């Protein structure tokens, strides 16, 4: 049974990656699971320099969801390459760096450093974090800026470039096409949805930053819809993200047209989630008489479209 997939030239032993911001730098989970069981790991977002992040409280639980404003606290790309990467490389899994910047130049500089660091398989370009005042969503909320960032990164690296798109836009296909035109090799869809939770006793936001990004099962139908829209709009592969906690959840994204998926918030709830999802994917393939996970990708039968059986049966 083949679970291995290839996305943007990156070979993944299975279609499951750990999503940025939910898996630290990977090494934190060394004692709790076998990292070589994962298709890949996307690092916590990294700027050139270390960042303090957002004020506390930083997380709030909402119905089947998690609202966060961490604000991209991180160690910076230099410390990652020097201190974390050598240890992380000992695991047989694809390592992607989530690249952040306040400016187009900073995105390019972080990417250039990654390009020269052995062991990095690809770059996920974070143009969609809702919890920082500069950069982040500012680049992901304007298709010209999306194009500019992706083109700048493209110009300094041969590594696969994978912009992570924001759901906080009217039409994600505009951004998907802008990224593709600028030379992206794949897309990650989606980042968190901008939300606000209020403590009515104090009449203040429950997060120190004010608004936050919503993740977890609460956002899954929105994520599936946007990943599906993006996958139909471009030729490059799409990596689906948003509320995946089970094999069935992952399969929704695969059927919708995603080549691979990322698991995020579920890492906090159950670090063994990869084991559970992988065994569920195998069981699904067996039940459907398929031998390769790629046979599932993009098989959605959408009402009113060619290939949809009821339409075909109508005389």
């Amino acid at each position: 049974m083949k679970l291995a997939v290839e996305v943007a030239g990156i070979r993944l032993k299975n279609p499951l990656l750990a999503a940025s911001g939910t898996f630290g730098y990977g090494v934190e989970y060394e004692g709790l699971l076998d990292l070589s069981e994962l298709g890949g790991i996307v690092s916590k977002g990294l700027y050139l320099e270390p960042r303090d992040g957002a004020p506390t409280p930083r997380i709030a639980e909402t119905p089947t969801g998690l609202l966060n404003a961490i604000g991209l606290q991180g160690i910076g790309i230099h410390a990652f390459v020097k201190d974390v990467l050598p240890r992380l490389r000992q695991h047989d899994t694809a390592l992607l760096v989530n690249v952040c910047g306040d400016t187009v130049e900073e995105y390019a500089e972080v990417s250039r450093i990654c390009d020269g660091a052995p062991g990095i398989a690809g770059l996920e370009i974070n143009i969609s974090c809702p919890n920082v005042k500069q950069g982040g969503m500012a680049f992901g909320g304007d298709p010209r800026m999306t194009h500019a960032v992706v083109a700048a990164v493209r110009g300094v690296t041969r590594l696969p470039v994978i912009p992570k798109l924001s759901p906080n836009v009217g039409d994600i296909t505009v951004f998907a096409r802008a990224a593709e035109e600028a030379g992206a090799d794949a897309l990650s869809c989606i980042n968190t949805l901008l939300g606000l939770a209020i403590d009515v006793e104090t009449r203040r936001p429950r997060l120190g930053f004010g608004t936050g990004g919503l993740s977890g099962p609460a956002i899954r139908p929105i994520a599936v819809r946007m990943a599906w829209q993006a996958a139909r709009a471009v030729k490059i592969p799409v990596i689906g993200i948003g509320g995946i906690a089970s094999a069935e959840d992952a399969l929704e994204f695969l059927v919708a047209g995603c080549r691979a998926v990322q698991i995020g918030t579920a890492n906090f709830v159950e670090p063994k989630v990869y084991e559970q999802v992988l065994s569920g994917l195998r069981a699904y393939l067996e039940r459907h008489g398929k031998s390769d996970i790629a046979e599932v990708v993009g098989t959605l039968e959408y009402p009113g479209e060619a290939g949809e059986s009821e339409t075909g049966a109508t005389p």
Partner: protein
Amino acid sequence: MPANRTSSLVGREGLGGPYFLLTFLHTETAREARPGQFVMIKAGASAEPPLRRPFSILEASPERETFTLFVKAIGPGSRALVSLPQGGVAQCLGPLGRPFTSPTGDSEALLVGGGYGVAPFSFLGAELARQGSRARLFYGGRTAAELPLLARLRQQGLEVVPATEDGSLGSAGRVTVPLEAHLDTAAGPHRLYACGPEAMMHAVARIAAARGLAAQVSLDPWMGCGVGTCLGCVVRIQGSGDGRWKYRCACTEGPVFDAARVVWPGEGESHARRAPGGRL
């Protein structure tokens, strides 16, 4: 090394009102836990509420391979835990965090527990007794009903001084009143340990600073993962070098911190998990 595994409930004792003692089978936590450490635990595998909850370990029994939690059921996570039937399954990751460090020499350990924040002090009290250290617990709450562990703590041989804000048990007023009275009269040296509402821990930190005493506090922010990846539970901790504070993960670099290093909330930022919303 913390272990993540399913853990079945083997003991459940109601202490009146929302308070329960829950005992779980978990070999690694039972064997390796130190006073001040915690577990991340969630009843069953349902999607709601999403996150595990951090709970201080009340006691651990390597022989029985169990640990016990003191749980106040006040939100969806804690209510689901206390509703588990005997043999019911929880997902448990532990033991986690940095423990309290024990006093050296002949100093007297003064433990200050407020409300359910008293949880780690049964374990710490037992450890201090085993080491032959002098120890005394100041146990505060709003009312007598908020001190459900009093009899049990005394039973284990701990010297307990209760205090209630309404005067229904022990000394009337804040728990820091009998603490300061003791510091004024009893022979030192003293060392302070505090866990409870943020304002109480801050008050203990101020008392320690004014008297030049060492104090450790166990902070209780919301936690996402328990292993330092989500960066959701950070607290502001003063560095030793340039005097500038940094965000430190309460889960991996705490929850126990040197009280003198904690930047206590002034303007808006809170380390506390109880408010806002009070959902646990």
